């Protein structure tokens, strides 16, 4: 019960008796429903409510991406984990500006720490120093807006290094639409991270709509955005560097127009394969003293966040140690 299934080409997904079947080009593939808990769909798919009902029953999430690889939304089974108590605590930490700031700062410092690690390895000392100064500034911030602008500074300093790291054109971060190949990779990778975090949030009793760094109104599941900040540098960015530096992804994996760029189907396949392999890798966890999968680090961070909300222990986000 923890496999992700990816659909890249158009077809029809349906319930066949007690299992799932994917039909495309006259071929039928049966998907063993018991070990899937996540379906990513990157192309046009025909489906019906009978299927959705079945997915709900089997606790499977369906994530849809449009033609350009933009995340369009998810079908999420009705929540099974609920805790009114925790919800009250989540809201309390949002409504109290002091408490909210503590958590918001934590997400930013965690993200910057992990960003710094990517630069440290490449000996970009001046940028690392800049990040350290920003980190110091963060402990003095009194408002979320201030914090956001510090974070933006940090991120810009980081992105300024991307042309050197990858050897690809970057200029600056552009989102809707991504202006070049590198931006397209970042957008796609971040969407993958966002949905992965969202899925883990749904397995805990946390409510994904209440967030601290991002405004809850920003996106429906903004807690996912908060937590993804911590993991993006560790997973998404490193995968991008690897794919480019090893020549696994090339210019012909993008649809590039005058002012927009998108990953082609082949490009998405390559990214997703690498993402999937990375998340399944294991590492020795220092506190738990056993090997855990990279993807489990997300759930462990959510546990720490819950403990913070319960007033048990302050949340200290995952700091990459490898």
């Amino acid at each position, binding site marked *: *019960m*923890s496999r992700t299934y990816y659909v890249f080409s158009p077809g029809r997904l349906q319930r066949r008796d007690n299992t799932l079947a994917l039909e495309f080009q006259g071929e039928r593939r049966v998907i063993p429903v018991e070990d899937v808990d996540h379906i990513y769909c990157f192309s046009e798919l025909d489906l019906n409510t009978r299927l959705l009902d079945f997915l709900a029953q089997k606790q499977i999430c369906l994530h849809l991406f449009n033609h350009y690889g933009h995340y369009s939304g998810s079908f999420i089974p009705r929540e*099974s*984990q*609920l*805790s*009114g*108590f*925790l919800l009250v605590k989540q809201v309390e930490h949002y409504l109290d500006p002091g408490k909210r700031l503590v958590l918001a700062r934590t997400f930013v410092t965690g993200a910057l720490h992990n960003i710094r690690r990517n630069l440290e390895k490449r000996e970009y000392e001046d940028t690392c120093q800049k990040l350290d100064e920003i980190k110091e500034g963060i402990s003095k911030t009194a408002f979320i807006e201030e914090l956001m602008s510090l974070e933006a500074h940090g991120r810009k300093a980081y992105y300024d290094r991307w042309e050197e790291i990858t050897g690809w054109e970057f200029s600056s971060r552009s989102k809707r639409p991504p202006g070049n190949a590198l931006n397209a990779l970042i957008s796609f990778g971040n969407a993958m991270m966002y949905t992965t975090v969202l899925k883990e949030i749904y*397995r*805990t*009793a946390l409510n994904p709509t209440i967030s601290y760094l991002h405004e809850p109104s920003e996106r429906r599941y903004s807690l996912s955005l908060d937590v993804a900040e911590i993991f993006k540098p560790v997973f998404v960015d490193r995968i991008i560097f690897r794919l480019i530096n090893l020549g696994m992804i090339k210019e012909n994996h993008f649809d590039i127009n005058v002012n927009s760029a998108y990953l082609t189907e082949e490009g998405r396949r390559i990214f997703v394969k690498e993402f999937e392999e990375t998340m399944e890798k294991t590492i020795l*966890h220092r*506190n*738990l003293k056993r090997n855990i999968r990279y993807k489990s680090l997300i*759930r*462990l961070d959510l*546990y*720490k966040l*819950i*403990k913070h909300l*319960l*007033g*048990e222990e302050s949340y200290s986000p995952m700091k990459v140690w490898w």
Partner: protein
Amino acid sequence: MNSDLANEVRAASITGTMVAYYFICHRKLWLFAKGLNLENISGNPDVIKGRVLHESRFQRESHKEVSFDTVKIDFLHYGDQVYVHEVKKSKKFEEAHTWQLKYYIYLLQSKGVNCSSGVIHYPASMRKEEVYFSPEDQEHLEQTLAGIKAVLNERVPKKKDGRRVCSRCAYFDFCYV
């Protein structure tokens, strides 16, 4: 029978699982009662085995999974009186399971049902254990229920206690990360 307490217990929504957890770990009891149930997501092998066991055993019993108030009993058996049956995976937490079953008897009695004993089944080891509810048990159970209520009233979870039970507990990652 102290029916005031029985009513109060019902109001506090004490489930059979909560009674068992009181004997296993107060922290687990607190977390579970606050809706932070980690049994279903942890992928803990013991939990999965337990679920399969519940789904596969005693399929033929006609009074499977009887629910009333806040509890769910595996199955009841009717003779000259009512017998409560619970199915458990291992005898490791026998004391906890015994009190869980006694709590069911207590609740049934508070409803005027003629019931004073039951059986815990351990199909994995092909054993069963009979449980008899004595008048002294009632007093001890009422103290236990008061203890549970006290745990639930705590504002923060109980500290983890690092006992041997932790290593195979579904809440381990949560407690120790």
